[in-house]
C-alpha cells in the first residue's frame, strides 16, 4: 500500500546531519516519520466518511555552543529540510546557553518484536468501513435506544527514524489499529449520559470492536433511568476510564523529572517516601507490546525499559529524558517523547497500575456506601492535586449492593490524598489505549448534588 524505502529516509537523515554540521552546528538530531492512516468516521449512527492520510515530516534539533534551536517541516524534500535546518540554527544562535544541552550517545537497543503487523500493508478503506460498521452495528444491535454520536476505526502504519551526530541511527516500523465509540441512549425525553469507549492494539487480530461497542452500549443503556441521590461522604469506585480522567495526569505529571526540576511536582522531595497506600504499584513499561505505546527506543534514540515508578506505595524513581537526566546526573529512563513538531519532552509510555488481590464482585460487596464512577468530566489540577467535576455513568452502592444509576452528582477531593486512601485494587485489569488499569476503591470522598 505504501512503498516506503527506509534507506531513502535514512540517507536523507544522514545527509541532513552532515549539512547541519557543515553549517556550523555543534550537534544535530534528525527525527523523521512517514505514516499512512486509514480512518473511517462514524457520525450520527452511520459511517460518515473515510479519510486516507499520509503524514510525513522531520524535526531538527540543533545545538550551537550549548544553545538549542528546533524547527520542523511536514515534508521530506531537500528544499524544505534545508529551510528547517536554517531556521533551527538561526534560533539556536539567539537562544540562551544551558550547559545541560547535549544529545545522547548511542547505546545498545533490544529490538521489540510484535509491534508491527504486516497486514497493515494491505489494509484498505473498505476494510476500515467494514470494521466501523461492525462496531456500529454491535452497539445499535445491543439495544434500539442506543445512539452513536460519533466513532472512529483507524489503521495506522508508522515508520520513524532517529539519527544524531553522536552516532545514533535507528529506525522502527509499527502498526496501530484503534477504535472508539461515543454516544448516548435515548428513550422518549430521557437521554443518558455520554459514554466513550476506546481500544487500540498493535495487531489487527487483537482488536475487539464488538467488546468495545458492547461495553459502550451497556453503559449508556444502564444509565438511562438514572435517579438523583443525596450528597454524602463515602467511597468512589473508579472504573479504568475514570482512573485515566482523575489519577493518571497528576501522577504522570508528578513523576516527570522536568516538573520535579522546576519545582512544580508535589513529589519533588519524596523519592523513597510513601506517596500512596501499600496497594498501589505503578509501572511505566514501553516493553509491553499489549499496549500501544510499546517501542524499542524513545524519541531521542535511547533504549526503552520497564520503570517501576511506585512500588507498594513507595516512590521509586522519576521519568527522564537525556536533558533532565544530565541535570540530575542520572540515566535517561527512555521516556523522551513527542512528535516531529517538538523537541523531546517527557511522558509515560504504557501506564500500568498493578492488579490487586480481590475480584471486582467481592470488592463491591465490601463498599458500605459509595458511587461507581465510569467516567469523570471535570478539572484536575496536577500541581495541587485538587479535582472537582461531574460523575458520568455513576451507580450508587449501599451496603455492598449496586442500587441504581445516579445523575447530576459532583465529586471533589485531592488526588494525592486519594492515592493514600486507596483501600482496594481489583484483580481484573482493563487495557485502555496506552494504559492497563484495574478497578480502584478510594475511601472518604465527597459527593455533592
Amino acid at each position, binding site marked *: 500500500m505504501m512503498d516506503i524505502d527506509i534507506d531513502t529516509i535514512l540517507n536523507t537523515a544522514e545527509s541532513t546531519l552532515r549539512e547541519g554540521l557543515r553549517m556550523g552546528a555543534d550537534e544535530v538530531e534528525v527525527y523523521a516519520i512517514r505514516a499512512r492512516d486509514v480512518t473511517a468516521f462514524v457520525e*450520527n449512527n452511520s459511517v460518515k466518511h*473515510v479519510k486516507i492520510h499520509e503524514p510525513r515530516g522531520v524535526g531538527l534539533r540543533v545545538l550551537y555552543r550549548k544553545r538549542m534551536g528546533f524547527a520542523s517541516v511536514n515534508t521530506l524534500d531537500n528544499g524544505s529540510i534545508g529551510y528547517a535546518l536554517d531556521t533551527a540554527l538561526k534560533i539556536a544562535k539567539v537562544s540562551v546557553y544551558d550547559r545541560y544541552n547535549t544529545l545522547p550517545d548511542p547505546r545498545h537497543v533490544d529490538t521489540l518484536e510484535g509491534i508491527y503487523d504486516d497486514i497493515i500493508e494491505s489494509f484498505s478503506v473498505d476494510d476500515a468501513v467494514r470494521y466501523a460498521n461492525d462496531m456500529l452495528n454491535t452497539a445499535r444491535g445491543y439495544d434500539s435506544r442506543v445512539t452513536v454520536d460519533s466513532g472512529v476505526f483507524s489503521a495506522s502504519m508508522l515508520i520513524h527514524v532517529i539519527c544524531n551526530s553522536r552516532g545514533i541511527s535507528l529506525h522502527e516500523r509499527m502498526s496501530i489499529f484503534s477504535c472508539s465509540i461515543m454516544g448516548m441512549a435515548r428513550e422518549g425525553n430521557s*437521554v443518558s449520559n455520554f459514554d466513550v469507549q476506546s481500544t487500540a492494539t498493535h495487531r489487527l487480530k487483537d482488536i475487539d470492536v464488538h467488546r468495545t461497542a458492547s461495553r459502550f452500549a451497556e453503559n449508556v443503556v444502564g444509565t438511562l433511568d438514572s435517579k438523583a441521590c443525596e450528597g454524602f461522604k463515602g467511597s468512589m469506585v473508579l472504573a479504568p476510564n475514570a482512573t485515566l480522567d482523575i489519577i493518571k495526569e497528576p501522577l504522570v505529571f508528578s513523576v516527570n523529572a522536568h516538573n520535579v526540576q522546576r*519545582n512544580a511536582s508535589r513529589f519533588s522531595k519524596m523519592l523513597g517516601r510513601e506517596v500512596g497506600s501499600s496497594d498501589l504499584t505503578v509501572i511505566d513499561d514501553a516493553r509491553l507490546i499489549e499496549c500501544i505505546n510499546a517501542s524499542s527506543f524513545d524519541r531521542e534514540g535511547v533504549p526503552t525499559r520497564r520503570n517501576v515508578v511506585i512500588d507498594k506505595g513507595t516512590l521509586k524513581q522519576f521519568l527522564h529524558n537525556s536533558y533532565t537526566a544530565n541535570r540530575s546526573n542520572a540515566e535517561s529512563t527512555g521516556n523522551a517523547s513527542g512528535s516531529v513538531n517538538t523537541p523531546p519532552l517527557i511522558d509515560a509510555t504504557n501506564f500500568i497500575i498493578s492488579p490487586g488481590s480481590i475480584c471486582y464482585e467481592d470488592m463491591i460487596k465490601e463498599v458500605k456506601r459509595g458511587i461507581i464512577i465510569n467516567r469523570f468530566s471535570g478539572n484536575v489540577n496536577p500541581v495541587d492535586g485538587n479535582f472537582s467535576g461531574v460523575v458520568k455513568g455513576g451507580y450508587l452502592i449501599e451496603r455492598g449492593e449496586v442500587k441504581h444509576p445516579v445523575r447530576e452528582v459532583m465529586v471533589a477531593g485531592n488526588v494525592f490524598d486519594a492515592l493514600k486512601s486507596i483501600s482496594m485494587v481489583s484483580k481484573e485489569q482493563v487495557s485502555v489505549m496506552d494504559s492497563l488499569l484495574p478497578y480502584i476503591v478510594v475511601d472518604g470522598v465527597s459527593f*455533592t448534588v
Partner: protein
Amino acid sequence: MIDGVSLEYLKGFVDKYNSSSSRYTEVRYHKRILNEVRFTKGKQERVRSILKAGVGIRVLSNSHWGFSSTSTLDEESLYSTLRNAKKASDALSYSSARKVEGLADARLAVGRFENCSIKSIDVRDIIEMVRDAEKEARRVDIRIKSASSFYREIIDRKIIVTSDGAAVELVDSKPEFVVTAIASQGNRKVSATEGIGITGNYDDLFKEMSAYDMARSAAEKALKLLDARIPKGERTTVILDPAMVGLLAHEAIGHLVEADFVLSGSIAKDMLNSVVASDIVTLVDSGSSDIAGNAAGTIPVDDEGVFTRRVKIIESGVLKEYLHSRESAYIFNAEPTGNARAFEYDDEPLIRMRNTYIEPRDYTLDEMVKEVKHGYLLKGARNGQADANGEFMFGAQEAYLIEGGEVRELLKGVSISGITMDVLKSIDAISRDFKYDIGTGYCGKYQPMKVDGGGAYLRCIATVGGV
C-alpha cells in the same frame, strides 16, 4: 512547498479535474507557521518553529464525502490526492452510510481577506520578553518557587477553491501569551495562570495588560490561593466573570446547537422557537469580533469558503438557530452560517464554534453582588465539557465567597455543573462590562480549534463541586 501555491493554480486544477462524476470538489491549501518560545524557571525550555503546509481535497461523489490530503503540491500529487478522496467516497457507496442529499446555497467568498498585517518580529526580542516575564513572576515573592511563560503565534495562509464558485485567499494571525506561577509553602503547592489569546498582531496582544503585569498578576493569584480553602459543595447562586460566561455560552449551549450534534440527538433537538433561557439572555456565535476587538475565534470566511455570519442562537430567551455547515443547512433548510472549520490542511471541515458570547445588559457587578445573601463569585476559566443530555460542567480558577451582599474570602477553584436549561433559565442579572476571555483555549472535537467566548458578569444558579 515553502513558497506554496497560488489561487490561480488551484482554480485551474479544480476546473481541469472536477469531473461530472463528482457533484462537488473542494480544494483547500493551508500553510501554517507556528512559532513558540517557552521559558521555565529561568531556563529556556524550547524555542521552535513549525511549518505545516499542504492541500486537503474533499469531494462529494455518489452522495458520499471523501477526503484526502497531501504535503506535496505538484499537479500529479494533487491529482492522486483527488483520486484518493474519490476512492474514500466510493468505499461508502456499498455500505449503509447515510447519504448526503445536497449542499445548501451559500454566500461563497471570492477575493482576498487579511485580518492582520504580518510583520516579522525578531525572535531575539520575543525570547527576551518571555524570559523576563517568567523571571518577573518569581520576583514577586520568595514563595513563588517556579514559573513558566510562553508566547505562541499561529500564522495561516489559506486558499479555498470549490467547484461551485468559492475562490478565496485568507491571511490570519493568532498570537497568545500565557504565564503560570507556582507558589509553594511546606507541603502545599498551587498554580495560577494569566494569559491572553487573540486574532491580530503581536502589538495587539499587550494592549490591555503588559506581559510583566500578567506575570505579577499570576504570581499574586497563586500566593492568595496558597492559603485558600476548598469551597463547600452545594447548589447555590453564582456570579460568573466574562471568561466563565464565555465557557457557559460555549459548553452549556454552543455544543448542543452544532447541527451535527443536533442530528445525532442532542437535547436541543426539536427545541427551535422554545424558551430555553430567561428573557434577558441573547446568546450569539459570530465569525467577527462583535462588541470588543481581537476575539481569537474571528474568521471572515469558513473552510467551505462561506462568508461567516452572526448567529443569534438564543434571542431574548428563545432558541432561534443552530450552527451549520452547508450540508446541515440543507437538511434543516436553513441559511449556512459559516461554521464549517478545519484545523489544519489534513483535517476535513467540521461544525465548530467561533466567538460565542452572551450580550451585555444593564447591571453593574456591585449591584449584582449586593443582592446575593450567600453564593460565590467565580473567576478565570478552566476546562469545560458538555453532555448530550444537557448536563455540562466547567471549571473556575478562583472562587470568592459572597455573604450578605459582600465579597468575602478567596477559596480554591472548583468545577460547577448544571443542566443547561435550568441554569440558563435561572439567569437573573447580566452586567454591562463585556469582554472576550477564553482566547488561550482550544476546543476539542476530533480536531483542536481556536475559539473565543465572553460576555459580561452574569448571575445564575448552579452546583458547585466542593468538599
